[in-house]
């Protein structure tokens, strides 16, 4: 059967049209941001430089693509339409008259739809894993930097131990199908996911110790919400069946948190050691505040600038790690539409077809670039203060 094609110009127009919900959302958010720039603090200042604007636009673009994936993508990312095997960009699918804008891959799936759905996987796992890594790093880094001594020695040794592992070896050992039969991933998940709960409990306890009405409300909320998510993620026992994660995704998640929390730990420890010599910390000590109050409410807020910048860079780094996992076929299902897996599949066939390789590589690169630009501009803005 003869497949008809549309021209290059029509492909560009077609892609732009498919992204209409994203353009709409971008226009609304950017318009609002420009209008209320003065009142938005650090976020508003980002719009003062072209680098900052570029960073925000790229990150928001992928965020909205992930949110509206089902509207943007014309086809099911897993559906195979045999006639479209290795179709070139712009091929028209005979049955539905839909266009394979970026062509079909070797399993006859729409590359454009896979790229769009791939953003969902990346934009869920990367920021969430970074968030957990931040929690772990902060909760351990604050006491290590503040107390020093034995705690610091032990925790730093452990952090250096993990950092001495080449990331790829760590993943080959931790993200294997076999390891899912052992309790190791669940034990690690149980340990890591405990840290956010500990963190928030300590945060509220130190602040509202003398105001029981506020304290019990906040502590109760933390324990209920935290416990709910904890049960859902670690034991897959969410009573309402809302929080759920696949075992292999849990495995990836845990491995990524494990690999990136020592880095956060080192940064937080260094910042704490620096900030604890300041006068306001001495003042708080003289007032008789407890160590944890000083760490969480005096030191941490003043360390937020470098931490935000680091979080931005780290989300990008985690995206790269996820791509690495996909590239080596570790953890994620082989048919998963994530960018790393797509790059792996396409790079083996580069001699015959190059079109399946380009969309996922450019997508991954642009997203990480957006995050790096954002981090760079955030750093510059926070230096100005």
């Amino acid at each position, binding site marked *: 059967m003869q497949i008809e094609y549309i021209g290059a110009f029509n492909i560009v127009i077609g892609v732009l049209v498919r992204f209409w919900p994203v353009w709409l959302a971008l226009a609304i958010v950017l318009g609002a941001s420009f209008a209320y720039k003065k009142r938005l603090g650090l976020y508003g200042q980002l719009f003062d430089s072209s*680098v900052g604007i570029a960073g925000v636009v790229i990150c928001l673009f992928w965020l909205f693509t992930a949110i509206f994936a089902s509207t943007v993508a014309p086809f099911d990312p897993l559906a195979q339409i045999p006639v479209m095997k290795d179709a070139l960009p712009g091929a028209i699918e005979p049955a539905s008259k839909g266009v394979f804008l970026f062509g079909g891959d070797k399993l006859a799936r729409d590359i454009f739809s896979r790229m769009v759905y791939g953003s969902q996987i990346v934009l869920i796992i990367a920021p969430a894993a970074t968030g957990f890594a931040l929690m772990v790093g902060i909760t351990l880094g604050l006491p290590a930097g503040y107390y020093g001594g034995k705690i610091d020695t032990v925790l730093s*040794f452990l952090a*250096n*131990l993990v*950092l*001495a*592992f*080449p*990331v*790829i*070896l760590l993943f*080959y*050992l*931790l993200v*294997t*199908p*076999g*390891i899912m*039969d*052992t309790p*190791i991933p669940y034990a690690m998940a149980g340990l890591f996911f405990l840290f956010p709960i500990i963190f928030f409990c300590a945060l509220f306890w130190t602040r509202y110790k003398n105001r029981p009405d506020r304290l019990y409300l906040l502590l109760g909320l933390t324990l209920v919400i935290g416990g709910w998510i904890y049960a859902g993620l670690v034991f897959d026992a969410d009573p309402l069946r809302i929080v759920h994660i696949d075992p292999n995704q849990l495995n990836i998640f845990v491995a990524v948190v494990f690999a990136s929390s020592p880095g956060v730990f080192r940064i937080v420890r260094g910042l704490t050691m620096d900030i604890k010599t300041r006068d306001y910390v001495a003042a708080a000590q003289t007032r008789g505040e407890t160590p944890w109050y000083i760490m969480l409410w005096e030191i941490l807020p003043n360390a937020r600038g470098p931490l935000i910048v680091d979080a931005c860079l780290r989300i*990008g780094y985690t995206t*790269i790690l996820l*791509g*690495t996992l996909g*590239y*080596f076929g570790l953890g994620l299902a082989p048919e998963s539409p994530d960018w*790393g897996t797509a*790059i*792996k599949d*396409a*790079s083996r066939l*580069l*001699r015959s077809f*190059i079109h399946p*390789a*380009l969309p996922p*590589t450019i997508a*991954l*690169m642009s997203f*990480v*670039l957006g*995050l*790096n*630009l954002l981090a*760079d501009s955030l750093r510059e803005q926070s230096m100005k203060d």
Partner: protein
Amino acid sequence: MLSFIARRIGTILLTMLCLTLVVFFLVNLEPNLKKLAISQTEMHTPPEQLESWLVNHGYRQNFFVRYGHWLGVLKMEPIVDPATGKASQRFSFCNDPAEPAYSGVLQGNFGCSTKFKTTVAAKLFPALRATGILMFWVLVVMVPVSLLIGILAGMREGSRTDRVLSVASIATTATPEYVSGVIFTVIFASWLGWLNGSAASAAQGITFYNFTLPVITLAIYGIGYIARMTRASMVEVMTQQYIRTARLKGLSFSNVVVKHALRNALIAPFTVIMLQFPWLLTGVVIVETMFRYQGFGYTLVEAAGNNDIDLLLGCSLVSVFIVLITQLISDVGYAYLNPRIRVQ
């Protein structure tokens, strides 16, 4: 200084001991041993024979005893066939001792590779040599280029050159090896046809044609990072009083940069370049897989994919050693280069 280095080497040895124990634990998990037994026996072997294979090859001994064997602090007992009572080697393809002997890493015996049917040393060291050649060329490309970019950008902060080079270096740090590798292959191999998209023939002889793509792919990711660090360091140096003094006493701008700024600006990048090695190790694995170059990274992937216990342990030992030694060199070198820092 000497006691500092001695203490650091002590920490390194402790770290290596802990890490190999962790790796040893992970590769000896029950599912991994099963996988090994299945890959080493013929197809469709019944479970009892898999179990007896594991017993016969000593995989069912106590965990710590086996770790001691591997390390060489316990005597390796040969496997005794219960029927004949004759002692035999564990694996015939590498010279395991047939009588009890200390034969572990401490004695220089890295064990047997079950995947490649040879000793680990015979597989690992040629691979390391191949990767060493790759690394050498990567450093030859990466270090001068990144230092040049960083110095040019940091020389006049905020100029057009600075902004263009900074965005370019951010872009390269956003491009992991598997992305730049694909893009370079598409452009230079598929499209222009100038270079070879595979480095498999580099084992016979390295040519510009087959070795350029792996080298630039590996170098490009590090270039951006080192360039940014150099730029930051250069910018800081250029605001110092002594630069102003040099400028005010009438030296030309180029003279100031070359004679006064460079020396001080290059201390920080030295540390950064040294600390790039751990990342280069990961990059090596990706690039060697992508371009089919049979080096250390390729060996590591094969070992991990087939749960080749001794080879994987050897690989982890080597990589951890490289990471820790480069850290030590960077610390010592920093103290040596910067007279203001004295190691206590």
